[in-house]
């Protein structure tokens, strides 16, 4: 990449900086022949903001803006709209996804922080036919349904680390998920049933 030096009145191109080793060269010819000799077999470096993520088992490469949240990447860019925005400040749990095994709030996570991470969304959990999905349906754990993906993901993360939760464990795990419709009492029943199915499998 040409390296620009700015003086008070105008921008003057003076030197060329190699994108691979950052060495500087005086002419375009010089940098061209350097790259051919020194770096011919290397692939071009990634532009700034490039991240590689695995989402629901699929590998992706994105070029993200620095202010993109992980939620925005998943919901708007990738179009996996199951993950929802309700409070936009980490208070409601609707944006929960699982990253490297931990449930995290995607609206409070920057996309640029996610390079190399494994992410599970509610869609992946459903595709994998996790017993939670069917138990949620059977137990009517949804009314308007907007918060439901956040609960499913949080519950899945709980069951990933504890296949024998007590009702109190469940209430604490779901304590950060808000449901305006008030479906709360149904969730522990569904989760306990799903836990039983997983234990017996």
């Amino acid at each position: 990449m040409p390296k620009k030096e700015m003086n008070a009145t105008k921008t003057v191109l003076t030197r060329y900086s190699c994108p691979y080793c950052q060495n500087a060269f005086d002419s375009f010819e010089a940098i061209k022949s350097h790259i051919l000799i020194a770096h011919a077999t290397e692939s071009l470096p990634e532009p700034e903001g490039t991240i590689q993520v695995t989402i629901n088992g699929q590998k992706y490469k994105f070029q993200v803006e620095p202010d993109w949240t992980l939620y925005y990447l998943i919901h708007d860019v990738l179009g996996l709209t199951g993950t929802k925005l309700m409070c936009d400040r980490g208070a409601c749990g609707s944006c929960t996804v699982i990253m490297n095994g931990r449930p995290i709030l995607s609206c409070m996570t920057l996309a640029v922080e996610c390079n190399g991470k494994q992410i599970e969304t509610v869609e992946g959990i459903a595709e994998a036919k996790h017993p939670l999905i069917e138990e949620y349906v059977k137990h009517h754990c949804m009314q308007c349904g907007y918060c439901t993906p956040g609960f499913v993901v949080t519950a899945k993360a709980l069951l990933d680390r504890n296949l024998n939760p007590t009702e109190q464990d469940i209430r604490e795990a779901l304590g950060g998920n808000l449901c305006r419709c008030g479906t709360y009492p149904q969730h522990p029943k569904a989760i306990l049933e799903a836990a039983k199915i997983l234990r017996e499998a």
Partner: protein
Amino acid sequence: MECIFEEMPSNPMEHDKYIPKTFHEVGKRGVRRIDGYRKASGKAVYTRDIRLPGMLYAKFLTSPYPNARIKGMNTTKAKALLGVRAILRYDDPEIMGKKITSTQGSEEEVLSEYAYFQGQPLGAVVVADSEEIAAEALGLIEVDWEVRPFVLDQEEALKPGAALARPQWSAAPKGTIMEDWTPSSEASNQMPVSFGFGPVLRFGDIEKGFNEADVIVEFTARRNYHGCSDAEMLCGVTRWEGECVELWLHHQHPYEHKWTMHEWFGIPMNQIKIHSPYNGAMFGGWNWMDYSMVPQYVSALMARRTGRPVKWIFNRRDDFTFGQMDVMTSDYRIGAKRDGTITAVQIKSIYANCSFEGASHLLENTRIPNILSETILAQVNKGPTMAIRCEQSPPCFCLSQLFNHVAAELGMDPAEVALMNDGVEGKDMEHLAEFKRAHGFPVKDSLRECIEAGKKEIGWDQKWHAPGAKKLPNGRMHGMGFVWSQEWDDTRGAGAAGLMFQADGTVNIIALRSDIGLNAETAYCQIVAEELGMRTEDVFYRQQDDVYLPLMTPDGSCNMSTNGYVMKKIAKLAKQKLLELAVTTTHLIERDIPPAFPGLKPADLDVKDSFVFVKADPNNRKSVKDVVKDLKGSVILPREYAGIQNTSHEPIFVFAWHRQGRFGLEPGRYRLCRQAHFCEIEVDPETGEIEITKVVNANDVGKAISPEAVEGQQYGGTYMGVGRNLSEEYVWDGPTGVILNGNLLDYKFATIQEIGSVETIIVETGMGYGPYGSIGIGEDVGTITSYLLHGAIHNAIGKWVDDGPITPDKVLKALGKA
């Protein structure tokens, strides 16, 4: 066709006489929710999820001041920001001075230059490539504000010399019923009372009532402003396709947008297409506000100007723009006899921004003979208030408070006081029984059934005690509480739907409505299945798309009553056609094919479990599929399903319309069903915190169509009510009039941890006005439980906390500790 419907009530006063002896699908548990998998797996689509090619985002400027006027506005810098495609200003020639008519009948400015609450959308709308760019551009708009004094409290607003909340109003503020309003000689914040009630309700002889009383109870109770916080923030999308317009609506009344778009843009209604995706909660409120259709107008205008689809979008702070209509201070004076009968109730209520009649439930479900209720309404510099689950809040507030006080004053069980006073319009239960008999209803004592079941479930007789009498080993004070009222539905509304059989024998219900999660889609399939004789899984309903037939949308706990009858009608019409088809020869062009049941008449047949069978010989049966299937219509194509071009017979399609009653209350139509709720709490006398160990709901829904849906409303209503009772309130900064807690961290609604357990009881007396004697529940629990805890707290600590929400500081103050 009329003969099918002669047994259905033709006026809203009558009981549904057409009730099967046994039910197959209605009332069944374990029916799979149509929306269940979609919602659990993240596949359900909401308006917030809609992204169209080329779509732009529109954001409103909001007022930083509680009372201000725009003197001038410079949008140059905003317009120059890369990514901003258009800005609509309040002084744009297309909207300046123009008022658009809402379907509530009011006239709205599109972009006002006046703000009367902090956070009010006004002045300008930025349309940009992304929400972030639009938000940044809003920050670049330079406004020259005229900042004016403001008033936040309704009692302050009524004092002489108070700042005028909306000085631009003339002597007749909007919403005036002219004959009721006498303009005062000087402008004031007082407004005519809302909802068609008068400012004074007089029933019986209040002085006589007080003279007959053994005890008089007086107190004041206050409710603070609280709001909706629907899960999905407000938004909507408009796209033009030539002269046709297409809308995606996060709104309870999608169909009304056809009328408004027609009015505003002059497009014929038949060229307007509506999408009603799933709604992330929709508890009323916004949708009943006149202003709620304006953002869609703005997005349509800007979509037309930019040639691109436009999504208008509120962030969570923008969403804190309206509140529930129980912002009130009420003074009570009540007279009662020692035996528990209440002889006189006098209430004076001062409301902010919107009022209701606090005594209405006293008339509708008690025998209290003497009532005097005065209502005063004042405008303050807070957002508009409207029915958020629901407008019955003020009467539930008044009824709960006064019954709790009377019971405690008399040392009586509050449930017994309730039973002593149950009735209607000053008359007792015998009068109600006469009404029930006259109009075909079963004669049952709904409140007694609810109370008996509820007391048993919570262990009331073992646990209830005198106020302040029980301290627990953990140092907390134990309390028991009780509230009750009617199970209301206003039995209003109208709806239309179609029904069609597919060639494989499955059935579609055809109608547009908005869904807010009450399992309506599935429940309507249950009713159709019941009446048609099919399995529920063979009936399907998808309500999101514009199929031109409008079913009633969620409103006032009336939906099931109205739409349920539409379902009965279409099912009955369809069954008639199905049985006719079963006995009718099919005439193809080349040949005749005998019917599924030759030589019989429709009256010889019936349908069960999706099979048509001969009544006299039930083993002689054929699946509905075999009856309706396409019959090798073409000589060329051997397949049974010959495709649309060559179907052998007319498809079975029917439609029906039903009107359930006039909008509002019919005089003389009594509320027959009741609800009762019990709670058990612990109050920490050191911190003032309240732990709710148990709530028991008992709701008489007449007949539960989907029991799980009813329970969902009991759970959900209880959690919402508890949140509203304990912690939900908007907090304004006194000196600046700015909302301090316009976010979900600082505005606290209930989490899963708020209640120990909720036990639900469904009572089914069959005394509802809806199909099968059913009645609505969507609003009832959430409304009454908003006042569940006041009585329980008095029972725990022997002191009253009459103001809500009951934050710990109020408890400590009542205990004399703060």
